[in-house]
């Protein structure tokens, strides 16, 4: 396959996943802001990434929900706004239309057609559930059609690798920049505030129900961490994502009859993810562990770009 195609496939999947992750965060945040009486500031901290906060502060005077939503959904100054991400995903998909099945490219076109009007206008909170649902649905239909209609060849593998590198990045980022402090708090008593934050954390990763289902009502920080880092049943855990990356790289090795350094990187990450279960939340190594994971993920991205002639 043309290296540029692989690049387009990989980024198409990454941008779409990123849009979906932002949508999930907004969904969780909206739920929180409706159900909790706390200061909205906390919500902003949660929804906007560190590196975007300065851009946000330059433009907006206050952290009202409306401003935050505009920023995340269609503010041109925010490169990672959802509208932009969906557009980039579609442009990448359009370029490699020939490599996609009609179902997959239709799913991109359809989501584009159904969200364009909503995203081009100022966002109204009343429209938000509809927008979020459409975006999440886009991701679902896209992945479903990829999974259900595409040949298991390199096209498929590059899409899957893009999806899971982006997804695990997101999970690691959420854990480390927003949650490690509350997860490491020494108190035995869970405050209402912490409880709320954990709830958003899990909701933003679509893991609230499944976590509750697995561990009952009890929100134990160690259990949450294990769930999001090591649990292979959880499709947004680091372990699950990396396993997918590793398996797709494995297929590429097989197809191309060649050894790749990218595979070795993913393999060594996988070892670290299967070896340890964090027994106690007081383990300060969590932060370092996740940081290291993120670095390796970044290294993996660069190695894939280099080894497969992505441009």
């Amino acid at each position: 396959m043309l290296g540029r195609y692989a690049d387009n496939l990989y980024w198409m999947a990454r941008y779409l996943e990123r849009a979906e992750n932002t949508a999930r965060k907004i969904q969780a945040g909206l739920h929180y802001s409706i159900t909790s009486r706390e200061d909205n500031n906390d919500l902003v901290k949660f929804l906007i990434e560190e590196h975007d906060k300065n851009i946000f502060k330059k433009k907006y005077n206050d952290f009202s929900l409306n401003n935050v939503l505009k920023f995340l959904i269609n503010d041109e100054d925010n490169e990672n706004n959802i509208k932009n991400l969906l557009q980039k995903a579609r442009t990448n998909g359009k370029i490699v239309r020939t490599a996609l099945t009609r179902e997959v490219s239709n799913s991109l076109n359809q989501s584009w057609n159904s969200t364009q009007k909503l995203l081009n206008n100022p966002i109204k909170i009343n429209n938000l559930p509809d927008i979020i649902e459409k975006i999440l649905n886009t991701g679902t239909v896209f992945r479903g059609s990829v999974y259900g209609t595409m040949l298991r060849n390199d096209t498929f593998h590059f899409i899957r690798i893009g999806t899971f590198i982006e997804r695990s990045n997101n999970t690691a980022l959420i854990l480390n920049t927003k949650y490690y402090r509350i997860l490491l708090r020494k108190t035995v008593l869970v405050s209402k505030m912490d409880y709320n934050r954990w709830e958003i954390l899990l909701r933003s990763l679509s893991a609230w129900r499944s976590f509750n289902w697995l561990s009952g009502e009890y929100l134990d920080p160690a259990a949450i961490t294990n769930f999001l880092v090591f649990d292979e049943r959880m499709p947004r855990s680091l372990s699950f994502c990396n396993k997918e990356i590793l398996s797709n790289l494995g297929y590429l090795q097989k197809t191309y009859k060649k050894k790749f350094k990218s595979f070795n990187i993913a393999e060594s990450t996988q070892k670290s993810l299967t070896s340890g279960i964090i027994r106690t939340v007081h383990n300060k190594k969590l932060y370092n562990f996740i940081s290291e994971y993120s670095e390796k993920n970044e290294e993996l991205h660069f190695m894939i770009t280099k080894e497969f002639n992505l441009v």
Partner: protein
Amino acid sequence: MSLIIMYDEMLKRNGDTSNKLYKKLYSWLNDQNSSILLKQSIKAEELFRKVGITFNVYGNDKAEERLIPFDLIPRIIEKKEWDFVKKGIIQRLKALNLFLKDIYFDQKIIKEGIIPSKLINNNSAFKPQMCGFKPPGDIYIHISGIDLIRTSKKNFYVLEDNLRVPSGSSYMIENRSTMMHMFPELFTRYNVKNVYDYPDLLFKSLIKCYGGHSHTPNLAVLTPGIFNSAYFEHSFLADEMGVNLLEWRDLIIDNNKIVIKTTKGKEIIDILYRRVDDDYLDPLTFNPESLIGLPGLFDVYRSGNIMLANAPGTGIADDKAVYSYIPEIIKFYLDEKPILENVKTWRCSEANSLRYVLDNLEKLVVKEVHGSGGYGMLIGPTSSKSEIKKFKKKLILRPDNYIAQPTIALSTVPILTEKGLSPRHVDLRPFALMSPNEIRVTDGGLTRVALKKDSLLVNSSQGGGTKDTWIID
């Protein structure tokens, strides 16, 4: 109000159908609820959007994507009539390919005084870089789209031979898919000839031209990029043929070969179906101002390490001034009479003709010799006095740049409107594939339809739409 009496392929003046081919369709249409049909029209549009069959309009915001309007009423042509048309196209293309071979080698047709030298050698569509070069299999015109118009049951004219990078084949196929998706029942009533095999035939035809090598050639489609108005078609054809769709940035010259970087390493390309004009192929050989293209591509081509389809320099054969000589060209190379007629054409470069044209502008259609897409032309009967006056000045300033033709009564086929069926002017572009021993013409083509009442402009850039075209047994 048009003064011309036109031939409608389906309806009689009283609104009934005169044509036996349309009888079954007509009775089927009468059984349908017209509001439901109109709804189907909208559904067709959604279908096109979903698939992403859109084109970009030049001069508009680059992000603007438009649909080519699609009309649900198919156009029907009998196989017997079609076989005649096909024969005519094959004859024409045979002669034109010989013509190209001749003007890039011995120029016998000029030496024998059939065509003036000036018309060829001073023409920007003539590429002297091609002189003395033999393209693989002696084929210049691998792919062509011949624009036909009809004026009566029997009379088909060739309006234009598109021999450079004609587009529309993807619409021909997508129109059929859409019709089959929406009205499967109609296809049980008619035995409609297949157009789906076009990409497969295209692939095989190009491979045959390449010939004489021990390995299976690696074919790719070259596109200017996603903002090109025909990008959908480029990707569609690459997809259907199962080959790479390349952009300029993908091509590297390595060891006098054209190479691309793949996820497995480097790969050699043998055949480029290029959807790029000659002038942008290679700035070292053609237009030095061009910012796109691959410097050195033409040298690789001349050393035989890449086949380009179509060959550079075919534009001289579909030049509008050369068009007027086609009967002579057919006679000269094949010693035959043309099967398909040419539209009467006045060459404004000739003093007598120019005088006639200037005196009769309000009756004529005047076209730029190198124009396309309906740009830069004058349609006398529908133009205002001041438009004609303005055009007169341009004509006097550069008579060489223009040809004129009578306003022809293009046949009409009804379209579906809110008030029922209403006739609109149409043309037809079938596609032809040439390989060393064969010229194949599609059983069907792209019918373009002027959606505005009485308009003769069928170009998509001028508000035209399309119809599915049925050749039936």
